[in-house]
C-alpha cells in the first residue's frame, strides 16, 4: 500500500476532470471524460491487484481530521472493493454510450457523470459515518440534473420524484446517525459496526436506515420512482442508475443495518421477506405486460433487488455471498441490457417493443450479445446471474422454505418476461421496414458491450475471483450476526450415510437383510 493515497487519487481524478469538462468544448469534454474514467479504471484494477486477500479487514486506510465533528477517513474491505471495481468498470462504458447520443451541453453532462463517479467511489470508501452520508446524499444533485436536462419527455416529473423520494428516506437516516454517534461517541464506521446498541433502540434505528436504503434499493412498494427515472434518463444515466446507484441500498444494508443492528434485523426479517416476495412476484408480473423496453428492464431490476434483500436477511454465508454476487451480476447485466436498448434506441428513437422485430436477421451480432445478457438476467448456468441467484436462494431456503419457493417463482417469471421481450425484439418477422434497415453494431458499441459480456461469463464460470476478496468480510459479518440468526424451518441435518447402494433391489421375504447390508459396495 505504501504511502500512495490511491483512494484519494481515485476521488480526485474525476473531480479535476469534471471541472475541466465544464470549461471544455463538446469534443474536448468527451475525451477528457473518457480519459479520466480510464485512469480511474486503471487505478481500480491496481486497487484490486494490490488488495491483500486474507489480510487486514480494512485496507488502504487514509485519515485526516479536516472537519469539525467528523473526519476525512477512507478505507475499503473486500465488499467495498468489488463495488468500486464495478463502478469504475462501468464508467468508461457510460461515457462511450453517450458519445454520440448526447449533443447538447456535453461539457456539463460529462461533468455531472464524473461527479457521480466521485460520489459513488466516495460512498463505498467512506469510513466515517457522516462522510458516508455526504457522499450518499450528494449523488442526488448530479442525478437530478442528468435526468432533468438530458432525459425524455416526462423528465421533470421523474426527476422530482427521484429527488424527493430519496431525500425523504435519507434525512431520517441522518437523525438516526446523529443518535448513534451521540450514543457511541465515535463516527468511525468500523467501530460502530462492532458497537452493541440496546435492542429497543435498534428497532428505531433500523427503521430509519431502512427508510433510506429501501428507497434506494428500491424495495416494493417504494420502488415507483425507479421505472419513471429509468425511462426518462438517457441511456448512460440508466446504466449508472441500475449498475451502481441501486447497489448503494444493498451496500447500506450490508454495511450498516446488518452489522450495527443484528437484533433489529432479525426482528424485521419478516418485513423484508414479505416485501421481497411481493416485489419478486408483482414486479415480474408487471414486467410481463410492459410495452416499453426500458420500463421492462427497470421492473426486472426491482425483482432482482428483492432477491438481494432476501439473501442479505437470510443471516448465513451463502445468502450474504449470493446477494453480493447478485448485486455485481445485476450491475453488469442490467447495465448491458440498458445499453442494448440504447443501441437500438439510437437508431430508431423509440423504446416501444412493437416497433422492432426480427432484429436477428439484420443485426445478428447484436442479437447474440442481447441473447447472452437476456440469459444472464434469467440466471442461466454459466452466466453470473446463475451463481448469485443460486447462492441467495440456498441461503434463504435454510431460513424459510416458503420464501425460497416464492422467490423461485419469480425467477421462472423472470425467464418468462425476458424471453418474451427477446422474442418480440429479435425473432419473428421483420414487420417494420425501418427497424429492418438498421445497421448492426459498430466498433464503439462492441467496445461497450464486449467487456461486459466477458465479465458476465467470467463471473459465471469462475466466481471464485469475486468471492475470494470478500470471503473474510462475509464470514466476519456472519459471525457478528450469529447471535441473532433466526431459526430456520429447513432444519438441515447431516444424515447418516445409508448402508446399501441406492439401486439395491429388496429381496423377497427379507431374509437376506443382513447379507444385503454387508454387501453394499
Amino acid at each position: 500500500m505504501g504511502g500512495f493515497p490511491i483512494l484519494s487519487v481515485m476521488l480526485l481524478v474525476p473531480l479535476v476532470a469534471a471541472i475541466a469538462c465544464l470549461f471544455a468544448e463538446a469534443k474536448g469534454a468527451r475525451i477528457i471524460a473518457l480519459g479520466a474514467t480510464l485512469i480511474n479504471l486503471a487505478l481500480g484494477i491496481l486497487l484490486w491487484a494490490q488488495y491483500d486477500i486474507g489480510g487486514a479487514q480494512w485496507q488502504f486506510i487514509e485519515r485526516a481530521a479536516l472537519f469539525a465533528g467528523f473526519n476525512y477517513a477512507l478505507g475499503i474491505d473486500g465488499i467495498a472493493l468489488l463495488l468500486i471495481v464495478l463502478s469504475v468498470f462501468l464508467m468508461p462504458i457510460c461515457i462511450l454510450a453517450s458519445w454520440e447520443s448526447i449533443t447538447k451541453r456535453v461539457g456539463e453532462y460529462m461533468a455531472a457523470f464524473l461527479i457521480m463517479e466521485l460520489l459513488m467511489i466516495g460512498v463505498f470508501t467512506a469510513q466515517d459515518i457522516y462522510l458516508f452520508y455526504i457522499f450518499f446524499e450528494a449523488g442526488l444533485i448530479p442525478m437530478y440534473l442528468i435526468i432533468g436536462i438530458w432525459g425524455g419527455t416526462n423528465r421533470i416529473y421523474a426527476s422530482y420524484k427521484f429527488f424527493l423520494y430519496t431525500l425523504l428516506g435519507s434525512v431520517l437516516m441522518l437523525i438516526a446517525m446523529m443518535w448513534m454517534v451521540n450514543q457511541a461517541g465515535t463516527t468511525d464506521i468500523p467501530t460502530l459496526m462492532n458497537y452493541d446498541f440496546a435492542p429497543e433502540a435498534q428497532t428505531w434505528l433500523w427503521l430509519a436506515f431502512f427508510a433510506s436504503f429501501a428507497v434506494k434499493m428500491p424495495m416494493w412498494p417504494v420502488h415507483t420512482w425507479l421505472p419513471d427515472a429509468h425511462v426518462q434518463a438517457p441511456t448512460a444515466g440508466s446504466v449508472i442508475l441500475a449498475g451502481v446507484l441501486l447497489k448503494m441500498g444493498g451496500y447500506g444494508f450490508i454495511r450498516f443495518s446488518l452489522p450495527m443492528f443484528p437484533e433489529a434485523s432479525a426482528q424485521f426479517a419478516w418485513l423484508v421477506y414479505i416485501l421481497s416476495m411481493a416485489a419478486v412476484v408483482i414486479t415480474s408480473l408487471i414486467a410481463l405486460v410492459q410495452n416499453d423496453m426500458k420500463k421492462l428492464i427497470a421492473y426486472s431490476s426491482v425483482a432482482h433487488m428483492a432477491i438481494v434483500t432476501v439473501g442479505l436477511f437470510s443471516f448465513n454465508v451463502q445468502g450474504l455471498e449470493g446477494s453480493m454476487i447478485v448485486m455485481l451480476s445485476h450491475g453488469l447485466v442490467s447495465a448491458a441490457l440498458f445499453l442494448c436498448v440504447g443501441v437500438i434506441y439510437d437508431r430508431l428513437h423509440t423504446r416501444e417493443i412493437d416497433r422492432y422485430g426480427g432484429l436477428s436477421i439484420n443485426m445478428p451480432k447484436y442479437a447474440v450479445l442481447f441473447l447472452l445478457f437476456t440469459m444472464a438476467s434469467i440466471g442461466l448456468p454459466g452466466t453470473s446471474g446463475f451463481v448469485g441467484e443460486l447462492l441467495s436462494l440456498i441461503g434463504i431456503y435454510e431460513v424459510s422454505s416458503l420464501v425460497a419457493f416464492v422467490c423461485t417463482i419469480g425467477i421462472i417469471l423472470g425467464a418468462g418476461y425476458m424471453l418474451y421481450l427477446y422474442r418480440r425484439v429479435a425473432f419473428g418477422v421483420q414487420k417494420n421496414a425501418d427497424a429492418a434497415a438498421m445497421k448492426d453494431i459498430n466498433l464503439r458499441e462492441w467496445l461497450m458491450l464486449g467487456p461486459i459480456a466477458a465479465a458476465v461469463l467470467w463471473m459465471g464460470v469462475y466466481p471464485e475471483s469475486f468471492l475470494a476478496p470478500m470471503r473474510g468480510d462475509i464470514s466476519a459479518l456472519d459471525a457478528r450476526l450469529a447471535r441473532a440468526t433466526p431459526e430456520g424451518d429447513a432444519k438441515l441435518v447431516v444424515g447418516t450415510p445409508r448402508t446399501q447402494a441406492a439401486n439395491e433391489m429388496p429381496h423377497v421375504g427379507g431374509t437376506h437383510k443382513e447379507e444385503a447390508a454387508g454387501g453394499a459396495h
Partner: protein
Amino acid sequence: MDYGISLYLTGPEIFLSVIGLIITLIAAWGGDKSARLCTILAVSALVGASAMTVNFLVNPAFELGGDAFGGLYRMDAFGSVSKLLIYLAAIGCLIVTPRFFDQGKEYKPEYPLLIVFSAVGMGLMVSATDLMTLYIGLELSSLSSYVLASFIRSDDRSAEAGLKYFVLGALASGILLYGMSLVYGFSGSTSYLAIRPAFEGALGTGALFGVIFVLAGLAFKIAAVPFHMWTPDVYEGAPTPVTTFFATAPKVAAIAMTARITLDAFGNQADAWRQIIIFAALASIVVGALGAIGQTNIKRLLAYSSINNVGFILIGLAAGTVAGASAMLVYLAIYVAMSIGSFVAVLMMRDKDGNQVETMADIAGLSRAKPMLALCLAAMMLSLAGIPPLFGFWGKFVVFQAAVEADMVVLAAIGIAASVIGAFYYLKIVKIMYFDEPADVVTGENDTSHWAVLAVTAIIVSPLGYLLTIPLGALADRAAEALFFAV
C-alpha cells in the same frame, strides 16, 4: 464601574454613531451628489466597527467580556460574534446597492446613513442585558428599517411595504412592551440578571403572560410563524438591496437577542418558553415551505424561504444547550452567506434595458444565457435546501445534532422530514433555470461589485466551505459558552 471602560466596551456602537452623525452632516450639505462618498464612509465605518469587534474577540484581556453602564449592556463573545455577522451582512448589502438605484437615479446619501444607524441599533440589541437597552436598540433598528423599506418613493409597492412594515412593527413593539411591563411587574427589575432569579420555580400566570408576550413580540421581529404575515409583502415591495438587508442583518440581531433573553433572563423557565419556541420552529418550517410552493415572484419565494430557515434556527434554540446556541450561530452565519448570495443573484438578473427581473417565468433557461449566474443561484438554492455537499447542509446538521444531543429526537425527526417539503420549491428554481426552455429575458450586464459579492458567498456555500467548519465551530462554541457564562 469606570465610565471610560463602559465607553470602551461599547466602542463599536459609539464609533458607528459618530460616523453616522458625520454622514448626516455630509448628506445635509452635500445633497444627492455625496451619496457615493457617504456609502464609502459607511462601509469603512462598518469595517472599523468590525475591527473593534474582532479585537474584543482575540484580545485575551476581554476573554470573559465585561458589563458596561451598570449592567445595561454586556460585551461578550456572543455579542461580538453576532455583531460581526451583522456588520459583514450590512457591508455586503451596501456594496451591491448603488448599482441597483442607478436606473432611476434615486440613490441618496440617507441610504447608507440608515443602514449605519440600523447597525448601531442591532449592535445594542445583541448586547443588551436589560429590557430597556433591548427596546431602544430594537426601535432604533426598526425605525431605520421602516424608512429603508419605502426608499423608492416613486414606487407604490415600496411605499406599501414601508407602511405595512411600520404598522405591523408598531403593533409588535406594543406587544413586546406590554410583555416587558408584565415581566417587570412580576420580577421587580428590567435587568436580565435580576429577572432570572426572580423567575425561579413555579411561574405565576401574570409572569407567564409576560414571557409569552415578550416572545410574541420577538417572534414578529424574526418573522417566525404565526407572526410572519408581513414578511412576503415587505420583502417583495422593498427595493431588492433592502430586502437583502432585511433577510440578513436584522434577522441575526433579532435571533441573537431572542437567544439571550430566553437563555439568560428566562433561563430558569426553559419549559415555559421551550414549547413556544418548538411550536414556532415547526410551524415556521412547514408554513415557510408550503407557502413558497405557489409563489411566482422570486423575492416572495425567498421571503418564505427565510421563514422556513428561521424555523431551523429556532430548533437550535429550543435545544437550550450550549451546543444548541452554538449550532444556532453556525446556522445563522451560513444562512447569512446563502441569503446574501441568493439576493445578489436576483439583483443581477436584469433585462437588456437594465431593469430588474423578478418573476420565475423570466429566469427560465437561465443556465444557457448566464451559466455562471445560474450555477451560483442553483448552488444557493440546493444549499438552502440542505443538500450535501453544499455548506447549507452543515447548518442543518449542527442544529439537528444539537437537538438530538438534547434528547429531542422527535423534534429533530419531524423538523428534518418537513425540510423535504422545502426542498421541493428550491428544486423548482433549479428546474426552471436548467430544464426549461430559455425565455431570454435576462441579458443585462453586471458590474464587478455584484460578481465579487456573489463569488465570495458562492465559495462559502460550495464544498470548500467545509474547511471553515473548525474555525466557525470554535468561534460559535466560544460565543455560546459566553452566553451561558453570564448566568
